[in-house]
């Protein structure tokens, strides 16, 4: 919009100068006009030759914001200034218009984030978005619209007050479980919910990053999340409750198994198991 306003002021200056044949004012107007036209080109060139490497999105729970990370590489040895990402359509889901904005050094690769509200579980297809810039004076905008293939997995929204965990299953017949225990199994990055007692403090200090010791021990006890045994009024509520249970079980480091009408996962614990279970819940049909 600024470009239009600025253009109007320029036109007024030029017409006034032409009318009074005031050459200095006319020269000023013409200089500003040619600067403006030059910036149109500069804006285009500021963006040409950027390539989108990939788009990634971590799964989120329904109701949270999905964060699409667009990885962009500056393939040339010159700078890019204030390259921004923006949703192409300002629908309600994409409230907040402007996404992210970065300067790119030569051959630098950076992430531009795009946020999107979620309200229902399943696969969220990424909407069309634009990469744009208004370098150097905000007079002209150069943009390219991308229609991506990317999607974000949206888990069901965890129930706020789920019933207590169904601690029915026995875990001692399974294989040794990762989690609590005496025997050191390995290191992994700290996840929220990990017990503080199991943080590998010395290693963490060296790496400026928290690491958790993964222990293994035969489990005393396990939970069984059975679709048919979960008390709920409808499907979505059932999924919500099961989601909340999974989170809680992970939190308390209690192994859990999942049994759905179409699929079943044996009792286990840990990031992968959690993700696998949640994915089944997210994509449940019916």
């Amino acid at each position: 919009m600024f470009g239009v306003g600025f253009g109007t002021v320029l036109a007024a200056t030029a017409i006034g100068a032409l009318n009074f044949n005031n050459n200095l004012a006319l020269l000023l107007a013409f200089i500003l006009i040619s600067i403006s036209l030059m910036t149109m080109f500069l804006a285009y060139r500021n963006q040409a030759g950027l390539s989108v490497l990939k788009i990634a999105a971590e799964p989120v729970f329904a109701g949270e914001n999905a964060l699409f990370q667009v990885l962009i590489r500056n393939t040339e040895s010159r700078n890019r200034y204030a390259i921004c990402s923006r949703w192409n359509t300002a629908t309600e889901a994409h409230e907040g218009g402007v996404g992210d904005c970065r300067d790119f050094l030569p051959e630098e690769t950076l992430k531009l984030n795009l946020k999107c509200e979620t309200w229902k579980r399943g696969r969220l297809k990424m909407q069309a978005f634009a990469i744009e810039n208004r370098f150097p004076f905000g007079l002209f905008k150069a943009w390219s619209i991308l229609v991506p293939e990317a999607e974000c997995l949206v888990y069901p929204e965890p129930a706020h007050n789920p019933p207590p965990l169904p601690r029915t299953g026995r875990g001692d017949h399974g294989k040794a479980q990762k989690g609590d225990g005496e025997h050191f199994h390995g290191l992994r990055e700290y996840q929220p919910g990990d017990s503080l007692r199991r943080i590998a403090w010395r290693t963490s200090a060296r790496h400026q990053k928290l690491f958790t010791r993964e222990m293994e021990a035969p489990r005393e006890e396990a939970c069984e999340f059975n679709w048919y045994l979960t008390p709920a009024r409808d499907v979505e509520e059932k999924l919500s409750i099961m989601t909340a249970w999974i989170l809680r079980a992970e939190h308390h480091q209690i192994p859990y198994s999942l049994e759905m009408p179409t699929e079943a996962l044996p009792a286990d614990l840990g990031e992968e198991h959690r993700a696998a279970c949640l994915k089944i819940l997210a994509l449940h049909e019916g």
Partner: protein
Amino acid sequence: MKAKRKIPVDTRSMIWVMATLAIALSVQLWRMPVWLIAATLAPFVWRLWSEKKGLKPLPTVMRVTALGVALLLLVMSYGNVFGRTAAVSLLAVMLSLKLLESYYVRDARVVVSFSMFLCATQFLFAQGLLMPIYGALVVATALIALAQLHRREAFVDSSKIPSLGRSAISELGFSFRILLLALPAALALFVLFPRWTSPLWGVPESSLDARSGLSDSMSPGSIQQLFMDDTAAFRVDFEGPVPSQQELYWRGPVLWEFDGREWESNFWSRNIEARKRPQDSDADYRYTIQLEPNERKWLFALDYPTQVPPDSTLTMDFQILRKKSVTQLFRYDMASDSDFADSPQLSQVLRQTALQLPEGFNPRSRELVSQWRQEIPDDRELAERVLRYFNEEEFHYMLDPPLLGRNTVDDFLFNTRSGYCEHYSSTFTVLMRMANIPARVVTGYQGGWFNEFGDYMLVRQSDAHAWSEIWLEGSGWTRIDPTGAVSPLRVQSGSLEAVSEPRHMLDFEWLRQVRNGIDVLQRSWNDWVIDFSAAEQAKIFEPLGISEMDPKRLVTVLLVVLGILAALLMPFILKIQGPMRRTPLQATWLRFLKRLQQAGVSSRPSKGAWTVALEAGEVLPADAPEIERITTLYNQYRYSPTPPGLKDFKQAVKGFRPGTKKEH
């Protein structure tokens, strides 16, 4: 659709915005009365203070009050807001007040855009050599402000605007580079863009602003004021011979009516056209005059003009009056026939007008004149007698003569005996009328400085002069310059030579020479830039054999030229995005990566710092602790909120020699 989000402006941008406006205002401020200057500058002070203290905008009531006060001051200063000066002052004050509510990017951009408009309006007042420098400064600062505001807008969601690592100086450098690159295209537009041959609407009536220059009245002291003014009145290009200094009487307003103190022009003489004028074929001198804008209607010429410029009339007393006042540089061709006899026959009415004197003034002079008249019956001899009187008695030619009483002529002749050209011409004319010889005062310019470099003559306001004309049987109106009788130097070498004392503190001969020399630049500037018009535009194509350029063809040529320019300049425009200076942190990190690469670790800059460190640790286990240390430092600095000193990081990288340690 939701209304667009308002983006608050940051301090750095705001300072550049205010700098732009301040520079744009700087020229206008000189033209404003002191109270208005204060009113214009006050918002700057407040806005700076509010930026420093983080204050909120003033409440609407106070802003409206401030506007009211400013408007009141404006009307009190100018009486209205319709004159050119007043209108531009209004724009200046309003823009300055706009600062009070410029807390968002949008308002700041309005201020910057209109600052450039304000700059353009300044060219209505002056188009001298310094003005383009002023314009360039305004544009350069405005571009910085716009660039800053653009970054503010783009990074609105970031916690802070990433620095480009540029100083104010290099920001200015960037602006000037853009300006320079835009110049060729702008010049092409300037030369080739179709001009309007006549304005669509009138030039603002300028009678409300007075300019210096000769006027249609003369009282003691009025020309003397002009003597202090070194600005150019007009420039003359002679085709062929250049007249000698004594012949250079540039005729301006002719004054007929005297009320005892002040001379004024005569209504009829201004409105009746010359019945007979010299043949153009008899002209002795041909020349072109480039008249500086003076807001008046007189066009100056040597006696006697054989041509009349378009839209002008030649009056019966050979003043050339233009229909509209000269508000812009005006160029006209002129030729003069110095031997022409003006009115060999004088009508009774004119004779009466040229003899009119107020009753009851100057009794002593009357007595003296009637004494002379008895001795000398011949008119021409009587005039010579008066001149001899001026020459032989103790008369002085000087600035700041003593004031004259009610009987100005008596006072001058018998008491003060010192004065400037208007005193002499006025006194002489009155004495002639007393002797029943028709006489009138002519004002104009006398002399001129011939510029050898530029081969033209410069006539300054300080060359303003007044002389007399008496009507003699047979030869008609005859020029008599009584000043010459007192101070021959005035006529032979010019006004500055004739007065011995300097006019002001900085009035040195050498400085005047320098200024005269610089005037060549001014004239070229006038010729090539200021005076360029539709007519000049048409002349460009004459050598190519094209006499008529219609706008359509001009635009075609313009587009072709612009295309060529774009192609030629493209490599330079491409460079404008030039290297963004890496921050010291980035530079050091890249050096570290390079060292790793030399040691055989393949790494791409796209990888995260930790990935690089872990991979490198795999390849170079001996260096792993050092690699980890450096990476840790890098990450610390990278996310630290304040710009770090980096000393330890730089040293660590400097001392880093991967692959030199033996594995144990």
